[in-house]
Structures are given as C-alpha cells and as structure tokens.
C-alpha cells in the first residue's frame, strides 16, 4: 500500500521529492552507464521492471482476510544493486499511479523514498550480511525480500506519522497507529514475499545463470576456480 494521491501536505510532498531526487538521478546515471556498456541489459532491466509492476497487480492472501500485493524491490536490489532500483522503482510507481490508480504523482517522492530507496538498501544490506555470515543463498533471498518489504511499510508509516501527528500522543502515537494498520496485512505478506522470492531466485539460477554471473550475483566459474 503506497501513500495515496493528495494525501501529503504540500510541504511534505515537496520535501520527499527533494530527498529522493539525488538517489533517482544517481540511479538513472547508473542505468545509462549499464545500458551503454551492456546494451543487452536494457531488456533485462525492462523485464525486471515489468515483473515488479505486474507483481503489484497480483493480490496475495493475508491473515486479515483482506489482500495486499508484494513490492518485489528486494529481488531487484540483489540483481541490479540499490541505485538502479531507485530509478526502476520510480518508473514502476509512475506506472502504478497512472495505470492502476495506486499511489500518486504528488506522493511520488515519498513513495520512491520508501519503496525505491529504503526497501532496496535494506534488502541489499541483508543480502550482503548473509553472504558474510556464510548462510545459504535461500536464507539470504528470503530475508532480503521480506525485510525490504517490511522496511518499505515501516518508512511509509513514519512518513504518514510525520505528516499527521496524533493530537493526543504526537508523532510516536501516530507511528504506532499506522504501523498497527499496516502490520495486519504486511507482516504475513512480507513472509509470503520472502518465500516467493526464494522460488523465483531458484528458477533464475536455472534459466539465467550466465547473466547472474555477469551481474555479480553468482560467482563465475573462473573466480570459483581461482
């Protein structure tokens, strides 16, 4: 669930645009560099972007009986690194706003910060930490995707709480309120997204091993031999 169109006051909407812009510009430069050095990556990036977009139209069952959708940015961060995901998430959020009526243009800066910056960076750090600890790849993918999803909604709750502090308990009370509402659907959803991410990553390692090696996600045979 992203912040809806017109939900943030003007000052907050502008501030989140200002905060997110450097990350998106940096990501856009990384995308241009990648597509110039490896033109075939353009289609790979587009496929990943389309997959992320379509994920948002797949409803997952949740504990409350309602349904919600995965973010898919954790997997993208593992494959393409967080800077590229900042740009990709911006495109996906723009499409979601204009094609699925989900999110909005005035809240794009805030939604990019939560889904395109905070989520991917958390997912990527978890993936790297898992590699350092020497745990299995499946564990790394699961936690990277689940925590990328959870951190996205954690940041969204903070953004909403900053904009609408509770009249009685202030920002802290408001954070608890929004976290409570999101937790009902997002905690089970994050677990589901982690499990689905493991399945998709296993398929990827079967069908696209050379690409994953070139992206540095999997170790190439030469490096293993060395």
């Amino acid at each position: 669930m992203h912040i809806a169109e017109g939900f943030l006051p003007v000052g907050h909407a502008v501030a989140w645009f200002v905060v997110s812009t450097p990350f998106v510009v940096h990501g856009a430069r990384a995308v241009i560099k990648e597509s110039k050095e490896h033109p075939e990556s353009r289609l790979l990036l587009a496929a990943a972007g389309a997959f992320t977009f379509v994920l948002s139209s797949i409803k997952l069952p949740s504990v409350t009986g309602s349904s919600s959708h995965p973010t898919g940015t954790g997997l993208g961060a593992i494959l393409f690194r967080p800077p590229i995901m900042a740009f990709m998430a911006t495109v996906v959020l723009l499409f979601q706003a204009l094609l699925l009526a989900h999110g909005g243009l005035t809240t794009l800066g805030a939604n990019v910060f939560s889904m395109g910056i905070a989520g991917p960076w958390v997912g990527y750090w978890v993936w790297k930490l898992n590699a350092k600890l020497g745990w299995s790849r499946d564990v790394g993918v699961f936690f990277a995707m689940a925590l990328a999803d959870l951190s996205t909604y954690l940041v969204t709750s903070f953004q909403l709480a900053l904009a609408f502090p509770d009249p009685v308990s202030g920002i802290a009370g408001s954070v608890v309120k929004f976290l409570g509402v999101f937790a009902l659907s997002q905690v089970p959803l994050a677990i589901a997204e982690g499990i689905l991410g493991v399945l998709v990553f296993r398929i990827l390692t079967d069908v696209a091993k050379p690409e994953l090696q070139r992206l540095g996600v999997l170790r190439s045979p030469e490096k293993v031999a060395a």
Partner: protein
Amino acid sequence: MAHGLALDHAAWASPWRERSLRDKGVLSLGLLGSALALPPIPGGAAVALISVVLLVGPIKVGWGRLVRVVWLPVVSIAIGVATVAVSVGWSSGPTFAITPEGLRTARDLAVRSLAATLALFTLACSTPMIDLLTGLRKLRVPDPLIEIASLIYRFAFGLIENVGEIRRAQEGRLGYVDRRAAMRSTSMAMSVLFLRVWERARRLDVGLAGRGYEDSLRTLEPPRIRSTAFLVGSLVLLAVLIGTSVMWGVLR
C-alpha cells in the same frame, strides 16, 4: 486488475487523446496543484466537481468505468483517513478516542485526497502512457531511460493479460479454494510469469539485434491538436477556481 485495464482503455478511447500533452498537462496538473494547495472547502471540493464533470463529459469515461477506477483509491484513502481520525493515548494502557481536531483533519484530508485523485484521472484517462513517455523525450530525458520505461510498459501489458489467464485456469482447478492452495497457486503464477517475461525479453533482444537495434526504438508520432483556445480556457478556469477559493477565505 479490471480497474487497471479500465484506466488504460479509457485513455486510448478518449476523444481527448488527440489533444496535445501540453494542453492536457496544463489543465490536469493545474487542477492537481489546486487540490493540494487550496483549502479543501471550497477549493478541493470544487476541483473534485470540475474533474468529475470533465471525466464524464468531454473525456467520456462513463459513470460505470469511473466507479470501477475510483473504488481502489477511495478504499485506500478511507483506511488512511480513518487512521488519522482516531487518536491513541497511553495514560493507563492504550486508549482510543475521536477528537474534534482529528475529525477536522480527517475531513480535510478526505476531500483533498479525493480531489487530487480525480484531478489525476483527468490526465490518466485521456493520455495513454506511451504519449507521456514521448512527452518526456521532448523534455530531453535521456533515450536509454525512455527506452527502458517504454519496454516495461510493453512487457507489462502482455504480462497482465497472462496473469488473468493463469488466474482463471488456476481457479478452474480449485487453486484458490483455501489459503494454502492460494499460496501455492500464487507462487506458481509468479514463477511462470517470470519465465515468460524472461523469455520474451530474450526473443525481443535477438529480434531487435537482427534489425540493428543500438540506442532507441523511434516510432512515428501521430499529429496532436494544439489549441490556444483550450489552453486559454484552462488557464481561465484555474484562475477562477483559485480566485473564488481565496475570496471565500477572505469573506468568511
């Protein structure tokens, strides 16, 4: 899913599709900015009313389609507004209350957010995404970025149709009969979907490489109507809207 396709179908079918992006952009973004910046009553309410008139009038969305596309944001806004309306306290364990201040904030928020959503729809229901991407190219956004966004759009629509087909087939095999079956069916659908988009990207790469694809996929751009009268009319409408809202605040 249906509401997503409904938005795109509305954009392709709208008589305003022929209008230039400049003309529609001034009107829609002007309404969107007004919804955000003006007081919700009367400014936001007026933006909502004008947007509905435009959507069911010249943009020809139709009431049925409008209801289909607006229900999802309305539910999203309602959840957020309800959360803002309820106050949480910690005096002796968690307490919940509805304060006049909370109610006032919630009311203003509901009007502003609904008005902004309807204003955005005036653009989304009259301008296909591909026209917006062409507009970005004119604003000198680098070609590789436009190319990737265009490819995402092209891939996404094929995949959304696939999602519907897979879902119908799985439902026919009782794939969503309980939570466990739904989880299994969803994971299978995601895996199949990923394989399809991967395969499509590979085939497109091979096909385009054979045609000498190097930097961008340029296509012919159909002529668009640039109307000074439309532009002036939009600016007058926005000026009247802003002026009336400001006067209302001064006179009250």
